[in-house]
């Protein structure tokens, strides 16, 4: 299984904005999305592709995952995006309109060809699949299993709800169905589940409530469209002191049992099995990322 990278926030950066491209890594997001797709008008697709390619060549983005949302291969822009971007080996591409395993396999094949041609180890660039239709929502497990490059599943809230005929609301109950599908498919495949954006950049309370809820549901992170949303989502993804304290005790008991060669671990009269250890590891990783890990003593 591939390394589980911290992706609490993924910040969209329009591929047409040189100032934001230059400063993309300073905002504090775990991942940045250099966007060639919906954030770019059709008349500027060529300019954004060249601008993002040059930014990837010239700018040292430190301490952040670099991803590029390319256009889908079924559009007139997708193939050119792959040919300019894959040779620069970003950490991952965000693949929109991922509605079948064939969409992933087609992207995988082209990426392998481009990696080989540019002397990059095949499989280096990961894929974060974005599903945006009712049809795609029924094939998430197959999409997640279609390539070892898949690092995470994501969905496009606006396109998906338009496709199923739902009304968008602040509460977001119309997304309950796709969120459940994304989480279950991601867990089966052993990849991450990433939530879509919260569109109102002025409603920080609403953003916090939604981010907190999706973390409870099992999501590993959430896309953001404005730098001011980053700290709010990180806060929602920061475990409570009680959660951190319990996770530390679980890990201590786990390590002690492992050193004794004991097969069964108990803590406070409760059996600690693999899922509890996995959850504790995830909480500790989130706590470390938030800089709030408790010191035992």
């Amino acid at each position, binding site marked *: 299984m591939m390394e589980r990278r911290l992706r609490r926030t993924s910040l969209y950066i329009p591929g047409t904005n040189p100032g934001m491209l230059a400063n993309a890594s300073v905002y504090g997001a775990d991942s940045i999305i250099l966007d060639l797709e919906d954030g770019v008008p059709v008349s500027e697709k*060529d*300019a954004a592709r060249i601008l993002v390619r040059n930014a990837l060549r*010239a700018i040292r983005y430190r301490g952040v995952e670099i991803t590029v949302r390319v256009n889908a291969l079924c559009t007139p822009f997708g193939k050119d995006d792959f040919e300019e971007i894959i040779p620069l080996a970003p950490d991952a591409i965000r693949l929109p309109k991922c509605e079948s395993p064939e969409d992933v396999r087609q992207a995988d094949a082209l990426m392998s060809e481009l990696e080989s041609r540019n002397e990059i180890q095949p499989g280096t660039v990961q894929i974060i699949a974005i599903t945006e239709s009712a049809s795609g929502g029924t094939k998430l497990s197959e999409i997640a299993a279609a390539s070892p490059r898949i690092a995470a599943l994501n969905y496009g809230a606006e396109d998906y709800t338009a496709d199923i005929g739902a009304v968008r609301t602040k509460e977001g109950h119309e997304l309950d169905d796709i969120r459940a599908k994304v989480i279950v498919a991601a867990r089966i495949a052993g990849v991450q589940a990433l939530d879509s954006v919260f569109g109102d950049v002025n409603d920080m309370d609403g953003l916090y409530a939604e981010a907190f809820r999706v973390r409870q549901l099992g999501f590993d992170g959430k896309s953001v469209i404005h730098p001011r949303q980053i700290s709010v989502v990180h806060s929602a993804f920061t475990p409570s002191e009680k959660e951190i304290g319990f996770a530390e005790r679980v890990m201590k008991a786990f390590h002690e049992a492992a050193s004794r060669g004991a097969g069964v671990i108990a803590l406070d009269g409760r059996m600690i099995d693999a899922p509890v250890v996995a959850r504790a590891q995830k909480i500790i990783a989130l706590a470390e990322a938030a800089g709030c890990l408790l010191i035992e003593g």
Partner: protein
Amino acid sequence: MSQMNNERTGVSGSLESCDALVMVVFSPDCEGLEIEIDSPSIASFGEEMRKAVRETLESAGIFRGIVKIQDRGSLDCTLRARVETAARRALAGDVREKVNT
């Protein structure tokens, strides 16, 4: 600037901060490349900017023409991207509305 029949013009970029507005007129009738740059950085980085423009255009196969740049503090990679885009648009015969003739 007059637009002759065998000239093709491409424009890219903007006048936003950190960007540059670039117009490339691909003109086989010119003697060479005529580069005009208006930039707050011209005193310090004028030569580097001209070099970047010239290299980018020559890579695109343009050796004769006129380039006009209104720079707003663009990085080297941005300037090269804008010039390359404008050059490709010029070669494609893509005359954009922003061109002031």
